[in-house]
């Protein structure tokens, strides 16, 4: 019964209402192929959102993760093309390491110079994007050049259904990876010391320090994990769309942050759950993709996402209303 009173339950209720509403406006929403493509859209944004959730629980905000995702993805794919390497484990390990190291840079600067995470990550994002585009290259790696192993991996389906006209559609297997990462992060946050230290640090850094948490280690855990998740999501994205574009993900930061906030995480830190974030990502992706189904012009998409973000932060701000002085 405790669940019914949690924010996660409210988010679930909002999701259900939104789904019923969209389904009433256009029943095509409930077609299996539409639902499968929605789930597929969730994967990359969702994995990035897990990283952003971690940062927000710690009381920070991260706008550099999309740049890290691009760095991991583009560096790895370009090296694979250059070396004519065709594999999976090593490329994914490399992109995770690249993302993690860049995250370590964020953690170092934020912790050492005690600087506002937003401004630090604005700076590191510009540094990383500038270096990738300026030194590595600006051209896309297209499907004809993309390493085959990556493309085939991205194509993997859990199962395939057939439409009446004989064409097939499947549910991507990547959803398993996403949900697996979500469960893992949930367990780490709930049941390990380092996970609890993130909540403690986010609620009150000074108190966390006094009860004996090493705040430096917490910061490193938070930003390295966020960076590694972003790097992984970047390469996964490119293997799912069969394209490596060094200008990808521009502006996606906001969508991801909006999804995490929709999921009930508070920017003041100390609050937020994995389940809420997964639901928030689903709501965001669903509404973005259903505007066309509902007959709304796509130029309205940004207004809708922005308004959703403002509405969600208003609700969380009213919930977390604290004395401001």
């Amino acid at each position, binding site marked *: 019964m405790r669940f019914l009173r949690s924010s996660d339950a409210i988010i679930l209720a909002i999701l259900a209402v939104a789904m019923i509403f969209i389904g009433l406006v256009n029943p095509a929403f409930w077609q299996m192929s539409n639902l499968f493509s929605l789930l597929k859209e969730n994967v990359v944004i969702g994995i990035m959102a897990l990283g952003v959730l971690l940062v927000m629980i710690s009381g920070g905000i991260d706008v550099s993760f999309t740049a890290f995702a691009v760095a991991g993805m583009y560096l790895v794919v370009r090296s694979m093309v250059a070396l004519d390497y065709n594999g999976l484990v090593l490329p994914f390990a490399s992109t995770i390491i690249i993302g993690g190291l860049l995250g370590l840079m964020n953690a170092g600067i934020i912790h050492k110079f005690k600087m506002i995470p937003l401004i630090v990550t604005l*700076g590191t994002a510009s*540094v990383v994007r500038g270096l990738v585009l300026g030194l590595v290259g600006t051209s896309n790696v297209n499907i004809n050049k993309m390493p085959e192993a990556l493309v085939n991996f991205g194509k993997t389906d859990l199962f395939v259904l057939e439409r009446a006209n004989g064409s097939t559609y499947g549910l991507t297997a990547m959803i398993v990876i996403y949900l697996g990462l979500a469960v893992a992060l949930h367990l780490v946050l709930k049941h390990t010391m380092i996970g609890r230290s993130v909540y403690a640090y986010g609620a009150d850094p000074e108190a966390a320090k006094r009860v004996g948490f090493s705040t430096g280690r917490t910061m490193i855990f938070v930003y390295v994990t966020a960076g590694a998740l972003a790097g992984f999501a970047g390469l996964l994205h490119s293997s799912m769309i069969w394209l490596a574009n060094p200008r990808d993900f521009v502006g996606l930061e906001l969508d991801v942050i909006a999804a995490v906030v929709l999921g009930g995480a508070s920017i003041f830190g100390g609050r937020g759950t994995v389940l809420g974030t997964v639901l928030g990502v689903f709501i965001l992706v669903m509404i973005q993709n259903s505007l066309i189904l509902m007959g709304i012009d796509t130029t309205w998409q940004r207004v809708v996402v*922005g308004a959703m973000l403002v509405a969600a932060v208003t609700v969380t*701000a009213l919930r977390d209303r604290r004395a401001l002085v």
Partner: protein
Amino acid sequence: MMMSETKTNATSRPGLRGWLKGEAAQTNVMLAVSCVLVLIAMTALRPSMFLSSYNFESMAFFMPELGILSIAMMIAMLTGGIDLSIVGVANLAGITAGTLFGAMAGDGGSGALGLGPVTLGVSAALIVGLLAGLLNGFLISVLKITPILATLGTGQVFIGMCLVLTGGPAIVGFPPGWNAIGNGKLVGIPVPLVIFVLVCIALSLLLARTSFGLRLKLIGTNPKAAVYAGVKRGQMILYSYMLTGMLAAMAGILLSARTNAAKSDYGASYLLQAVLIAVLGGTNPAGGRGNVLGVALALISLTLLSSGFQMMRVSNHLIDFVWGAFLIGVIALNSWRRRKGA
């Protein structure tokens, strides 16, 4: 968010005022020196190109819009906030005016529009800025939303409204009177530069010589003391975001007047640069500290630097890298100085 300041404030409270003044002056001297150094270095590398009057004149035309955005960012930071929607506001202001001109001109084309419609356009743009700032201020001071998220969200709404108004492509063909704001000259001095200098003078007077400016800084320095001193916090924050919105709209007027066009994604890189210039100019993002002269000096030194880079044919992407690296470098330097001063 306040973690950076609590420590230094506690240890340096006696003589806080003198110390503040000292640091601001120090920063400004350092910035002026770095301006001169950049100037000398660039002149040595590319003497004929860099020192040409054409180069300085073109800088005088495109620098003011970024300068006004940086000052807007500084105002938002004074209370410990930030405004991530300034570029959206600037574009929305330009596009609103452009749409208005389009509607007024009818079939005759906007070339025939005289002074009256242009004045109307300027007022409309400024009102858009004021309303946008009012919305931000309302979300932040009344609904108590964190400035980062509130302005991130409203920024998207503003950019979205630009897209809805234009349908995607740029609006072109502003009346000649409007273009004169961005490309004209007043007794040999570019009009944007005149506007920028006037804005600088007005705002430094506002911040340094009026009780409004003093109270604004007090909110950022010590929110508790500000409340006990009878400062109406919510009201002040509302006003400060309205001012920020108006300044952003002014930058939008300059931008669209200079380029003779308005589009939803113009000046996207200005956001980072405005944050950088504000921080480099001695503004403390945690609130309380900031002065117009510092921001102007930071603007000049960075404009000289990037114009020099462009002349040496450094790619734009690497210039982005330099901007970001500069921001981090300044953060590190400020932190080191704070520690030494504390």
